[in-house]
C-alpha cells in the first residue's frame, strides 16, 4: 500500500441471504456487538439468487471487497439454493482468478441466524484484509 493510501477505508459490499446471514447480522446488532463499519449490506433472498454479475457490478461501482454469505448447507430456506450457489461460485471464482482478479478480495461464508459472533469475526477479518490490500485500483481504472 502506497503513502497516498494511508488512512484508506475499504468499501466492502456484502450480499447476504435474508434467512440466515441477514438474521445473524441483525443478532450481532441487537446484541450490541461491535464491528467495523466498512460493510454495505445488500439483502438477497438466498445465495442461490446471486448472479456472478453482482460481483462484477460491485467492483465496477467501486467496491474493494465483496462478501457473499448465506445459510449453512442443509439449512437453506428454499432447500437447495445454497448448494447451487456453492457449485456456481466454486467455478466462477476460478474463472475470476484466471483473468487476474485477486481472490483475496472475495470472501464466501456460511453464517446462520444464531451466529452473530461469526458475522462479526468474518467482517473484522475481511475488512482488515482488504484494508491491507489497499484500494482496488486495477478494477477501478477500467471502470472510469
Amino acid at each position, binding site marked *: 500500500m502506497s503513502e497516498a493510501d494511508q488512512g484508506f477505508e475499504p468499501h466492502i459490499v456484502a450480499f447476504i441471504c435474508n434467512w440466515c446471514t441477514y438474521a445473524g447480522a441483525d443478532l450481532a446488532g441487537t446484541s450490541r456487538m461491535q464491528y467495523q463499519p466498512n460493510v454495505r449490506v445488500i439483502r438477497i433472498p438466498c445465495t442461490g439468487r446471486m448472479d456472478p454479475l453482482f460481483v462484477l457490478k460491485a467492483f465496477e461501482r467501486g467496491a474493494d471487497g465483496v462478501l457473499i454469505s448465506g445459510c449453512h448447507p442443509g439449512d437453506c430456506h428454499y432447500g437447495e439454493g445454497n448448494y447451487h450457489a456453492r*457449485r456456481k461460485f466454486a467455478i466462477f471464482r476460478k474463472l475470476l482468478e484466471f483473468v487476474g482478479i485477486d481472490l483475496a478480495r472475495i470472501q464466501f*461464508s456460511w453464517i446462520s441466524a444464531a451466529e452473530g459472533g461469526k458475522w462479526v469475526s*468474518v467482517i473484522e477479518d475481511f475488512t482488515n484484509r482488504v484494508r491491507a490490500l489497499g484500494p482496488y485500483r486495477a478494477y477501478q481504472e477500467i471502470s472510469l
Partner: protein
Amino acid sequence: MNDERTLKIREIAKELLSKGEIAVFIGYGKGTYNGKARPIFVRTPEEADKLIFDSTCSNNLVTYLKFPVVRDEGVVGIVVKGCDAKALVGLIRESQLMREQVRIVAVTCEGVVADDGQLQLRCQYCDVANPTFYDFLVGSPVEDQKPRDFSGLLEKYETMSVEERWEFWQSQFEKCIRCYACRQACPLCYCTRCIVEKNQPQWIETSSHLRGNFAWNIIRAFHLAGRCAGCGACEDACPVDIPLMLLNYKLEKEIWDYFHYRVDLDPESVPPFTTFKTDDRGEFIL
C-alpha cells in the same frame, strides 16, 4: 481435396431430399475465400452435388439450428463433426431441439484446419473423432482419440502472477469491439434476449470500453460453463482474435476437477449447474 466422405454425404442428402424426409440439408460447399469450405443450405436433390467435405470444413453448422427460422422449415438434415455433434446434443439436452427434428449425418474427422492451414487448436484435444450420435455415419473410423487435457496450454497463464494475468487479459479484452460475433457463432448461445441486451437495469455496458468488455467476456464464458462443446466457433468468429477458448478450456478443466463432468454425446447426461451434491467441495467458504 474432396474425399469419399463428400460422395457419401451427397448420396445421403439426395436420398433424404428426394424422399421428402427433410426440408433442408445443411452442409459444406466450396467457398470463395482461401479455398475454405463454407456452409450451404441444400433444398433440392439436384443441388446436393454442391456438397463437399474436407479438412477446411471448420464451421460448426449446428449454430443454424438455434434459429427458429431454420427449424421452422421442417426436418433439417445436417452434417456434423464430433465437436459439432456435442453442440447438437447440447441443444437436445437443453430442450431447444427435438431429436426427431434433425437427421444427423456425422462424419469421422481427423481434424480441420484454420485459415492459415494449421490444424485447429481444438483438434489437438479432440475426444470425439468418431461421433457416436447420428442417423448416418460417414467416413472410416479414425484412430487417435486424444486426451482432453489442457493443462499444458493453460499452465503458462496459471503460473503468472495475478497482476500479469490481469494485464494479459486486459490487453485482450481491450481489443473487443463488442460485435458479439462470438455469441452469434456459438451454437449454445441461444437466448432470445441476451443479458447484454437487457438495459433495465443495464448489467453490462454496451460501449466498447474495458469496463463492459471485461464483464461481457467473463459472463459469456461463464454462461457456457459446463455446456461449451469446445467447437471453437466463438474464437474462429472473433475479428480481433481474443483467445476465448482459453477461458472455455479453463472452465472445462475446473468443472472436471470439481464435478467430474465433461460435455459428452449423451443427451441424458446432467450438466453440473443443474444439479448438486450435498458434499460438493466448498473449501473456499468460511
